[in-house]
């Protein structure tokens, strides 16, 4: 029986990919004060960013409920006896915790393996896609997990924030904030893997894009690249163009960043995910 792959909306996977690879996506919950929206279902990404800027209330995102997980797992249990559930990093969200509780509820009816990607956006998305491809090719559950974990090890995700305003409001980035100084306006470039870590800073957006690009290209043997934006498709195109020029035979995917990172990064956020090739693994 084919292994079924599940993930959450933080993976930022385009609809075509989700459908082609038969991935099941469970939405994160976006909260604007009392209003709760299912990410991508009750609120599109575009609507989210409009609301982010205009709403007097700063939004937060929260993991899908245990019940939401149960529903999905129960439904899939009717089609398969093995599920691999790959999710946003445990330090970024309680999603993995909710998945684990739901798994325990299902008991022996279905084997459910949960993978903590330690990543977000395409840092998670690439791992999910790799797992789904393996599953589609008939891999065993071990093979599907291995495919996901391999990408988890080999991926690096960088994010450039236009402003610290949203991060401050969300209260998530205090460690980063300490390094950033509020006497000069700076654009931080962060590493988004396992946790958020500061990597560099620039004073202008143009310099920030260039710096993030340089940092990304410094990884050896790149086999896959993701370029993510929230409300700046032209910048994403430009960045993707730079990547393609530098790495001619490497596939470059552009996608939109959702609320999971967007709520803290703000509408100007840009990100890149790099997957190193297998042979360069230590």
């Amino acid at each position: 029986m084919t292994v079924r792959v599940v993930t959450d909306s933080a993976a930022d996977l385009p609809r075509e990919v989700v459908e082609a690879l038969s991935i099941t996506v469970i939405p994160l919950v976006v909260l604007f004060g009392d209003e709760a929206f299912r990410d991508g279902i009750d609120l599109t990404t575009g609507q989210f960013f409009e609301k982010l800027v205009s709403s007097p209330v700063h939004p937060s995102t929260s993991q899908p409920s245990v019940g939401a997980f149960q529903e999905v797992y129960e439904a899939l249990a009717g089609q398969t006896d093995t599920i691999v559930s790959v999710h946003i990093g445990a330090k970024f969200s309680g999603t993995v915790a909710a998945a684990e509780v739901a798994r325990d509820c299902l008991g022996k009816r279905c084997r459910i393996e949960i993978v903590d990607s330690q990543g977000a956006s395409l840092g998670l998305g690439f791992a999910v896609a790799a797992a789904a491809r393996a599953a589609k090719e008939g891999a065993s559950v071990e093979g599907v997990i291995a495919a996901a974990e391999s990408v988890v090890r080999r991926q690096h995700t960088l994010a450039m924030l236009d402003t610290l305003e949203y991060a401050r409001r969300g209260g998530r980035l205090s460690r980063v904030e300490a390094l950033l100084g509020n006497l000069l306006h700076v654009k931080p470039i962060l590493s988004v893997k396992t946790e958020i870590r500061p990597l560099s800073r620039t004073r202008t957006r143009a310099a920030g894009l260039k710096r993030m690009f340089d940092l990304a290209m410094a990884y050896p043997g790149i086999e896959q690249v993701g370029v993510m934006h929230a409300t700046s498709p032209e910048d994403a195109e430009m960045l993707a163009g730079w990547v393609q020029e530098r790495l001619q035979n490497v596939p470059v995917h552009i996608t939109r960043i959702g609320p999971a990172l967007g709520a803290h990064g703000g509408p100007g956020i840009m990100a890149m995910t790099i997957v190193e090739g297998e042979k360069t693994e230590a």
Partner: protein
Amino acid sequence: MAGGKFPLSNAESEGHAVTRGRRGRDTTTYSGKDLREMFAAATTWLEQNAQAINSINVFPVPDGDTGTNMYLTMRATMDEAYESGSEAANVVAGAMAKGALMGARGNSGVILSQILRGFADSLSKKERFDSHDFVAALDEAAVSADRAVSHPVEGTILTVMRAVAAAARERSKKLRGNLKNVLAAAVEAAKDAVAKTPSLLPALREAGVVDAGGQGLYVMLEGALRYLRGDLASLAPLAVQDPERTWARATTALHGIGEALYGYCTEFLVSGEKLNAGATLERMLELGDSVLVVGDETLLRVHLHTAEPETAISYGRSLGRLSQIKVDNIEEQAGQFVARVQASRYVPEIGIVGTVVVVSGAGLEDVFRSLGATAVVPGGETMNPSTRQILQAIESCPQEQVIVLPNNKNVILGAQQAARNSRKRVRLVGTLSVPQGMAALLALNPEEGLDDNAALMEDARREVRTIEVTKAIRTTTVAGLRVRAGQDIALLDGTLAVAEDSPQAAVRESLNRLVNDQTSLITIYYGAQSTAEDAEALADEVRAVYPSLQVDIVYGGQPHYRYIVSLE
């Protein structure tokens, strides 16, 4: 040296071992005491000529302090020489080299310290020396000076030093080649070489000045010669004498264990009329502690530990003429890494690589701290800290790997010297301005090591353009640009390129030259001579001309440069 023993005739009396070798060659020997007194006289003469030397800097900018830097270097040199308490020439020379090494300020100070190093190395086995040893030492000093600079340039102190060594050697071969005559020949050669520097360096010729560093060396040699000739009328009591050491002892006691380790150790000398030590003491006690005020109606010496050095110095300035101003950050002196008062936002992650930043200006210091600089070395009025200050800052970092950002071309040699003398792994990223320093510091990656970060920071510093606006202290011509004293001039990435009749016009013209399609952010750091209102007005003017650019204003508080502007 008040009431000290200057020789009454020439140096061949007063206990010098006078001997004559074959063919009447002079083999009179001299002690470390003679050496010290010669250099002390050189230092005094240098002090008296320091302002004049400052004013012949090629760039007519107020912080071109070659004279002051060389004098301060020599003062530190002589402090060490007197501390040694020895009569042996090699010990005194070695002490001088050590004092110069640590006390070197500015590029000219560093070269001078290398000259003294070569001099000391040559005399390392001589407790007494004769004129031939002296000549050999001058040779060694010239070689050492050349090695101090990676790209030696003709028409500078290096040329003068070489000419001095050559002339001394020539004279010593001749009849009556005694020390006095050898030194006289050296002084003549120095004078000549200095006069020729404009023919070797076009910038000097155009500005109509001789090389300041070379002039400083000539003045020092002249001072030493006057001493040998007993020509005392022109030499005022030496600045370096016992009272100096007494002061040093007294103030050191104030830095003992148990003293509050915060703020700035602030010292200055006030000369004026009807000065009141008691009133001054009271005022200083309001500002801080560890206060020491000594002196009389015409000269007061002040020391205190305060969080407001500017206030203390302003008070001093209101009393008379200030000199020997020293402001050192006690926290860094103590080798402790203490967060500042506003600190909770400014405590940086302790990454693998520490950063030492040299900067003048309270606001600029704040900015660098807020960007996470590990240690900040205040440049002071001359914007040139000593090698020791930079070294102390390096040692105060918790990290074993440190990057130094000098932010001024005149601090580079001193920073290199400090790096060489640290037991830590230190790299210098040659930032030439405050904006370059900020861009470099921003590029620091806490996850990378020393060499990778040095490379990142080197790339980053080149991305920013700098405009520095100040007042011309002299009428001159530089690179074809005619500048009148008092005009508002701007240096574009270190090159004097604009002269206008108002600071606003200078900024406008500079932006006109530098702004291009890539520019998106202009930051105006306003200095101590400017106000927030002036800066806002200037920013509004700039915004009107460049509506698509972001224009930020930041309080810098820097001396001399009314505006420092960065383009990114």
